[in-house]
């Protein structure tokens, strides 16, 4: 590791969420070990922060402090041997004493790490009352003479009462603190941590500001990528077109097959979103909402799904097996086909061989075209947006179920506007990547970008 590495120790009483904090800050679900028990972390573990390919900051996760009262007793009972010992000297003496090291093994590691670090993050569980043993911990930190940033953890949990803590910290001269929750961290939590640390460690303010910027950019990039994934899914679903003979059983089978393809495409989008945020399918369990083990429970094509997102089936829509598939009747001559042919010819110079070929063949054979209906597109969009939002707010330390808000988006989500955005996709069946021979053209990219921008606006109007 380079000499210029900024070292920050994360300390606190046992079981206050230090390892969870690091998991959330580093987006690493597998960092260290987390359990609701004392002494889970038993040695110091480091996690690195990178900027422009270089290691610039190291977080040190430490074992919890468990017996600060006794340690303080020990320090205060040190024989002075005729000289005045200040705080730092006492700590030094403690660290040199092997017997003390054995008795206070965990505390010794923590203090050793603190003396080698540039700053300290002191993690507090604000669900706990302010007890004297915590004051003793702060006393010990004070002795080490390092800038301390208290982190008020579990701020979003029931039973959290930060006020007594803020007062206690203020009495000790610690007026800058950070409010955090490792289960549902603030959306720009990383940037917040870096910036607040920069206020404390002014010598590294520039570096910490760069880290904050980098974290913000990464978060924005994740959102953009997520929206592009969802937009891609919507374009694929909108463009998808299958043909079938008009016979009822054959038609039903073709519809069923198309529905399967769309379900799988949705699942691929979900997996890609999880990858984007570095979560895994096995991280989540259902909580009464239609989501479990990385899959949606409620079938995309069921009327339940439509109801869940507040979409109402139009008049005359088919029920049962045909729900969610819009069936066109195509006959030779003046139909939707011809209309779009003319429009297409006027609009674009070259449609692609596929559309002309299969369209023509299907029309000659008197087949019906099957497409995904507008309602299902809306359901797709809303479900994925919900998931994206939940993932953005989800901390990597969370071990409980993922709660998806039953769409607060439906009221502000203009369904007709979305369908209009996807209108271009409806006309280009070769854009659907659900079929492997899809045409990944510039025009498709532009439409995907347009849909992604629209989704972004929809998300922001909801959140502001």
């Amino acid at each position, binding site marked *: 590791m380079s000499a210029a590495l900024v070292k920050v120790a994360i300390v606190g009483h046992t079981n206050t969420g230090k390892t969870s904090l690091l998991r959330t800050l580093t987006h690493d679900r597998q960092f260290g070990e987390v359990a609701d028990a004392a002494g889970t972390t038993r*040695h110091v573990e480091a996690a690195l922060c990178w900027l422009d390919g270089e290691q610039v900051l190291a977080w040190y996760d430490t074992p919890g402090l468990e*017996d600060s*009262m006794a340690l303080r007793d020990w320090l205060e009972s040190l024989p002075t041997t005729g000289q005045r010992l200040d705080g730092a000297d006492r700590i030094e003496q403690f660290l040199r004493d092997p017997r003390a090291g054995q008795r206070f093994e965990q505390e010794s590691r923590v203090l050793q790490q603190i003396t080698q670090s540039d700053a300290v993050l002191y993690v507090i569980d604000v*669900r706990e009352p302010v007890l004297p*043993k915590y004051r003793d911990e702060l006393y010990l930190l004070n002795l080490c003479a390092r800038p301390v940033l208290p982190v008020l953890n579990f701020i979003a949990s029931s039973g959290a009462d930060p006020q007594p803590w803020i007062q206690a910290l203020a009495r000790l001269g610690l007026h800058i603190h950070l409010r955090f929750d490792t289960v549902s961290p603030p959306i720009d939590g990383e940037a917040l941590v870096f910036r607040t640390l920069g206020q404390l460690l002014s010598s590294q303010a520039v570096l910490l500001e760069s880290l904050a910027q980098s974290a913000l950019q990464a978060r924005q*990039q994740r959102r953009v990528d997520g929206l592009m994934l969802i937009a891609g899914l919507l374009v694929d679903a909108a463009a998808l077109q299958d043909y079938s003979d008009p016979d009822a059983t054959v038609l039903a089978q073709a519809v069923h097959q198309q529905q399967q393809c769309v379900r799988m495409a949705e699942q691929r989008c979900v997996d890609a979103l999880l990858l984007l945020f570095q979560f895994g399918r096995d991280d989540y369990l259902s909580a009464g909402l239609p989501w479990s083990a990385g899959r949606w429970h409620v079938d995309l094509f069921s009327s339940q799904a439509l109801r869940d997102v507040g979409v109402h089936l139009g008049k005359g829509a088919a029920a049962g097996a045909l729900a969610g598939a819009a069936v066109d009747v195509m006959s030779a001559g003046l139909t939707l086909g011809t209309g779009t042919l003319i429009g297409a010819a006027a609009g674009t110079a070259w449609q692609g061989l596929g559309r002309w070929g299969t369209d023509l063949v299907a029309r000659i054979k008197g087949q019906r075209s099957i497409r995904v209906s507008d309602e299902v597109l809306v359901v797709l969009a809303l479900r994925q947006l919900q998931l994206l939002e939940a993932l953005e707010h989800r901390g990597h330390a969370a071990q409980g179920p993922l709660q998806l808000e039953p769409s607060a988006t439906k009221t502000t989500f203009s369904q007709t506007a979305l369908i209009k955005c996807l209108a271009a996709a409806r006309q280009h069946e070769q854009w659907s990547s659900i079929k492997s021979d899809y045409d990944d053209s510039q025009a498709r990219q532009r439409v995907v970008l347009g849909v992604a921008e629209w989704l972004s606006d929809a998300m922001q109007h909801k959140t502001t």
Partner: protein
Amino acid sequence: MPAGAAFDCKVLILRCQKPIGVKPLFKHWCYQFIALKELRSGLFHDAALNRVVAQHHSEPHAQLLERARALTAQQNADSQFTEVRRMLQSTVGVLWAITGLLGLSVGLAALGSPSQPVNVIWSLLGLLLVPTVTLVFWLLSLALPTSGLPWFGKLLQSVMTKWLGKTRLVDAWHAWIELARQVRALPLWLALVSHVIWCGLLLGSLLAMAAAFSLRHYTFVWETTWLPVDVFVQMASGIGSLSAWLGLPMPIASDIAASGNQALDDPQVRMRWANWLIGSILMIGLVPRLVAILVCAGLLGRRYRAYRIPTETSYASAVLAQIRHDCPVDLHDGAPGAQDQWIDLQPATGSTWHDQPFVVVGLDLTALPEWAQTLPGPGVVDDRHSRHEVLQQLNAMPPQRLLVIVDAGQTPDRGTLSVARELSAKAVQARLYLQPRVTGPDRSEQWRLKLNEVQLKPPFSAHAQALQWLHEGAV
């Protein structure tokens, strides 16, 4: 000359399709190929590979490329890169040949039947209007990035997509396209292919014309209904001056004037007109396209050489995070020490506490619970001072029974447990009670485990039980 020129063009074309050395391009292609697969079905995780990659390369983009290359080799997909490239080259070659043949017939058609004189202006327009207009559009589109993509290029892309879409090379093909898109080279590739194919067309017409002029007898004329002669003289001389660079004799002003609306049979004049036609097609049609090919190839080479993988995309960040996770961080911290050894407690030989047989003490509480506030006891032990005090008092007057009340929501830490043990040693019998919290976590299970570890009796879970024990002694 034409045959030699055709051969040179083909070699040039093949060379242009490999603008830089294969290896860097191959690695970038591997990255896109693996990215496609991973974005579809999750990251591959090969911890040993990640460690090797991190050891040998320190820069993020180099790590990403090496990992992708190694994963491609693991999946035996290396050959797909060259397969797709060869298919591309052969498709372009076939298209080139087809348009060459087409050009032959176009060239002959432009000349028409030898019994009729060739209308030079009309033929030239027919041959060169479309190629020149599309070339101008392409030049404009370089300046303004619009949607006007070269037709032949798009044709090729859709043909290849259709052809490869259903084969196992579909991912390899999409990786090529995606790489071209990332390097912002896709329009240039499509333009290059377009130019090559137009070259084929023009070359074909040139060859046809050359053959026709060699083996058939043509006369040349220009026709007009209402334009003056001077216009044609100016136009033809102007166009001829371009071709004059080739060193071929061009029709002079008198030849041009004399050819109006009637064909001259003079062999010199006919040869000059033939040179004029061939020269114009060469200089206005073929040469600009060749220059465009060189320009495209040059730009492509530059773009590919200058390209670096963006490491801030979410996919790249996820891969880098995986690599870094697998690399051990150099940290000197010893193994955790042995767990604490708790020595056996010797209970006190009791008497009474201020004439009371039992005592209640709160440990690490903010206040005693209501039901315990009227019971005898020194109150709450929370800081060092109160601990010292209470232990001294209990030392002096050890009670028969001591109940220690702790917060069931707190994590039982070593410090609290050691104080609990110390307190327990000051009474004949000692038990703990876990006071539940109104809201917040409940850690009773942890308490039970820890108390068992430190050899204290299991705690009471209901305060009624605790009270009964205090008053009556046995439970």
